[in-house]
């Protein structure tokens, strides 16, 4: 096939007529562009795509896409998206959420969406701050962070979203970063190809209220030093000369010098490992993120889809005879006739 045959759409085909209103320089712009580019590349029909969001800066996303969209209420996007996926399993349903939306007010919905494994893709724009309400700490803000609502420092430990998703039985878990568009697009493609719920944490810079939160992963040198690019079937190595690596031991994952332990001692990344323990251990390497941070696909396993299982129950109940009759059903509960 030639390019002209496969490329039915361009990025512009996925842009809506609404003016994009994020702050200049916000990481959301880059993610929006990555998504539009990705959709054009895979050639998904616009009418088959639905974006569902909650409340927050990122949740304006659906308005800027020329697909179907539902801008919901705070925290509830996974529920609305689940309803859409149940009603029409042929759709490609994407949830756009933020750290406050998904992990604070919507925490209950996000974990259940993961464990159920409906075919919905959750993109969590993690900027570690409340942007829309102008700068309060969020459930991913670092301990002690000084904000308007925490002038003496935020209390309580932050969530590590990847660890949380793995703990919630997610079948696909990945992490990427706004600035790296090719990486984002690749992760989106992988999530799309995965049949089941997908959880993607996207480090997103809020240049107004939490600028440079992800600096350790962006500057040229820092990036080389700190980004651990997970690759399926390969030993986990990183560093400017791939001189550092990760070993897994009884007490979790540990950073080592490859020269000291030897290549064979390194952990070989397996996205498809049925047990999420190794992926979880990797997710614990960094918090914040500070220091070496794994990026890419942590986990990608196959489990039956909720909507398929439900449909199977319905078909089994009907036993190939089609829907039963309500009158019949009522009569079976016990009726009597008066002449």
């Amino acid at each position, binding site marked *: 096939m030639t390019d002209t045959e496969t490329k039915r759409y361009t990025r512009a085909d996925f842009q809506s007529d609404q003016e994009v209103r994020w702050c200049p320089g916000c990481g959301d712009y880059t993610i929006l562009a990555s998504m539009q580019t990705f959709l054009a590349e895979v050639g998904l029909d616009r009418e088959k795509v639905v974006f569902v969001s909650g409340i927050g800066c990122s949740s304006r996303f659906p308005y800027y896409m020329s697909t179907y969209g*539902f801008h919901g209420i705070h925290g509830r996007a996974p529920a*609305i998206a689940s309803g859409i996926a149940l009603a*029409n399993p*042929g759709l490609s349903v994407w949830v756009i959420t933020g750290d406050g939306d998904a992990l604070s007010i919507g925490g209950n919905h996000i974990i259940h969406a993961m464990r159920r494994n409906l075919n919905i893709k959750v993109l969590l724009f993690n900027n570690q701050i409340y942007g829309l309400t102008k700068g309060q700490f969020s459930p991913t803000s670092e301990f002690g962070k000084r904000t308007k609502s925490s002038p003496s420092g935020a209390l309580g430990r932050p969530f590590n979203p990847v660890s949380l998703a793995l703990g919630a039985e997610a079948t696909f878990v990945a992490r990427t970063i706004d600035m790296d568009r090719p990486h984002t697009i690749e992760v989106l493609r992988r999530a799309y190809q995965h049949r089941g719920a997908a959880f993607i944490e996207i480090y997103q810079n809020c240049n107004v209220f939490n600028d440079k939160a992800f600096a350790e992963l962006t500057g040229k040198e820092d990036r080389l030093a700190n980004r651990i690019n997970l690759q399926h079937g390969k030993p986990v190595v990183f560093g400017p000369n791939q001189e550092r690596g990760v070993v897994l031991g009884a007490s979790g994952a540990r950073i080592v010098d490859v020269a000291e332990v030897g290549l064979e001692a390194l952990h070989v990344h397996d996205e498809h490992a049925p047990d999420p323990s190794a992926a979880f251990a990797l997710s614990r390497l960094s918090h914040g993120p500070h220091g070496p941070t794994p990026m890419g696909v942590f986990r990608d396993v196959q489990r039956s889809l909720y909507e398929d299982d439900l449909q199977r129950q319905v078909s089994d109940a009907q036993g190939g005879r089609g829907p039963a009759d309500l009158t019949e059903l009522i009569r079976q509960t016990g*009726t009597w006739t008066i002449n």
Partner: protein
Amino acid sequence: MPDETPTLEQESVDHVRIRFAGDSGDGMQLAGARFTDASAIFGNDLATLPSYPAEIRAPAGTIAGVSSFQVHIADSDILTPGDNPDVLVAMNPAALRANLADLAPAGTIVVNRDAFDERNLERAGYTTNPLRDGSLRGYTVIEVPMEEMTREAVKDTGITGRGVLRSKNFFALGLMIWMFSRPLEPTLEWIKATFAKDEAVMRANEAALRAGYNFGLNTEQFRHTYQVRPAKLKPGVHANVTGNQTVAWGLVAAAQAARLPLLYSSYPITPASDILHELSRYQRLGVRTFQAEDEIAAIGVALGASFGGNLGVTGTSGPGLALKSETMSLAVMTELPLLIIDVQRGGPSTGLPTKTEQADLLMALYGRHGEAPLPVLAIASPGDAFGTMIEAARIALKYMTPVIVLSDGYIANSAEPWLLPNLDALPDISVPFVTGPNSDGKFMPYLRDAQTLARGWAVPGTPGLEHRVGGLEKEDVTGAVSYTPANHEKMVLLRERKIAGIADDIPAVVVDADEGADLLVVGWGSTYPAISAGVRQARGRGAKVARAHLRHLNPFPRNLGEVLRRYRQVLVPELNRGHLARLLRAEFLVDAIGMSKVQGMPFKTFEIEEKIVEMTRP
């Protein structure tokens, strides 16, 4: 032989009210329900009132743990489970103590004598044994050694240990079946079908049932049996139904009439859970249910399903309705069809979870942020639920709006015979999806039908109609986000007019009036049977009275104001502190008088009757 015709004298009565009462572990709900079914099949008209404790396992033998089931059977059309039982079956001292005050004067008490030991008497708070101290003088007391007889009856069935006495409710049931000349067969068949998987239990229950029946036949304690002849119900196929059941059936029928898949999304809550249970068994009808992680998710999933082109429905009780409030406002803003069923219970907070109340009406009308009007309907009885669900779906689809349907704990759990409608003749309430552009080659999601003011329903998957909905204020016609002051006011008024306009599309309120009546009794929801029976009784005492019952509470029927103004006095009995009365006063400037009861129980017929007699006294 149980099937022999009793040789005792048979006394014919036109109606009788029986209350089965025991510990919550004694199986009284089951005994009552089986007696009811046997009576229904026999052809009596009937009404029931189950009452059970909120705790699944309240301490055995205590008043708090008493569970009861009242059934009223009659040879003519009756409306209520009856105020005071004529016969009380008491399985232990606590059941006797908790129910004795309700028993009709000179009523009959059938007690399980074996349970009247010191320990149980003490748990029930008796200092002396009421069977011995003369305090039951004035009643006919029939003492039956139910435990001893049950033990004897099941001894060859393979049941041992603690299981033995589990069958004693069937003994009591068998005795009542004999006493009221019901056929045994329907119950025997039911036992066979229900316990098919456990032969020993099946045999034990059957043996206990027959033993109870034979005990009546063979002992001299019973002077006679009673006969309540079949009632003249309308010809046709009847079923004995509870409200939660008919809500479920009504939803299935509504989805069929709408030609839409049904998705029922709910979170377990008393007394609404049985709707979820019932619908979950209907996969063979194509019904899909979803047990959500919480009340908010439940309505979110239902709304998402509606956006996706299903008939999205959620069901709950008061505390859950409060949690769903924000999403209901979202449904108002996005103008999507959605049904919300509220099976009301005593509140506030957890309140009286197993008891009935009507105190969610104002929340249903106004319990949302912003100007968020939506239609509200109420179910009057178990039989009425079926049609109300279809009507609610019709409105939701035609007007693209969420609709609240109010039921309550009484309707949910009580039973009545119901004439099956012809399901092949369901009305067509389907509303076609928008499939193409509706304005100059474009799709305008908020372009409205000139008459109904409903916007078009375009579901994801339809090429060319891609659009965004959401909670932010919408620009008229285009549906784009708009913060323009004048547009907001326009949209608030449009949404309001759309709902108010439904008044032109619902039946006028019907008044059942005596010539020359100057008192109108207005009811809504589950007060229907008590008000109807109270009016009937008051008329029997010469009162002239008019009666109207509302199914549509928002908007009200067009003629309601005119009807109210026809009468000098308006009485509004409600199981709350005057919600409808307040609405009628505010809306129509009439001096509606509230009549309130908040005891977790329905009105008794005589309470309504007395009030009417008092208000119509010359």
